[in-house]
């Protein structure tokens, strides 16, 4: 049986992943700027705790961000697809395309 919501989910995931990967690498994140500012104000400050786990490199980091975005996008696409499906099965006949 066709799963029409799959298209919407797929589009959402694709958009989210593209947005993550296409964001220009050269743009400095405000989070990094914040840590630089801290080190400027408070010379010699060293963080007293390290992340329990960190991505190995830029690509791994981007992949994980993309995964996060894809997870959220998949659910959103699913939910909106459900609403779309419910709307199209109300009194009027379902669209013959589906």
């Amino acid at each position, binding site marked *: 049986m066709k799963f029409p919501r799959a298209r919407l989910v797929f589009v959402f995931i694709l958009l*989210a992943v593209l*947005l*993550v990967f296409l*964001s*220009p690498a*050269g*743009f*400095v*994140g*405000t*989070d990094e*700027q*914040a*840590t630089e*500012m*801290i080190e400027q*104000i*408070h010379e010699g*400050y*060293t*963080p*007293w*705790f*390290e*992340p*329990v*786990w*960190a*991505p190995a490199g830029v690509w791994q*980091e981007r992949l*994980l*961000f*993309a995964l*996060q*975005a894809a*997870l*959220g*996008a*998949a*659910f*959103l696409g699913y*939910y*909106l697809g*459900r*609403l*779309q499906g*419910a*709307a199209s099965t109300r009194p009027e006949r379902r669209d013959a395309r589906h």
Partner: protein
Amino acid sequence: MHIAEGFLPPAHAAGWTVAAAPFVAAGLWSLNRHLKAHPEARLLLGAAGAYALVLSALKLPSVAGSSSHATGVGFGAILFEPGVMAVLGTLVLLFQALLLAHGGLTTLGANAFAMAVVGPWVAYGVFRLGRRLGGTLMVATFLAAFAGNLATYVTTSLQLALAFPDPASGFAGAAAKFLSLFAFTQVPLALVEGALTAVLLNALVGYNPPELRQLALFSGAKT
């Protein structure tokens, strides 16, 4: 904007965790109560969480070669009231701290206070004010999400200034430094977040699902 792991001195990290904890606890209670009364709302709740998950993963380029994150908490705050977002926002932050080394466990309390407490409450307040003043749904949502995003970053800036006062100009000087560092970057992003949230909410209201009609602010939503 998340404060990186270990970049808040222990006393501050602990203090903000204590500050955020009652909100998260209240949020859990509120979430539980809402789900018990309206089990069919769980998908919409999931959507609110998913939206925050997507938006906080997006590092959006902004002006002057800098970039930052959106928050995505405005959507859920407007729908379910801010208490619930204290939980959902904290979960998103925890996810990012553990799996992306973004934000941190020591700074989870501070980041949660900024993004899961202040942001949602400001968004909610602006939304209600906007509607009371006769604004359309889209305008009120846009302003709410915009304000919520900015409120989050202002809170983070103040948290950092409190922890790292400038040797010469003290808290005020540091606050000015942190705020001005991020002001140009965050404003365009907040505008984007406002627009996206307004579009999403408008789409949702268009479908008018039963779980939306149960929500206090939307039982007779006029656009």
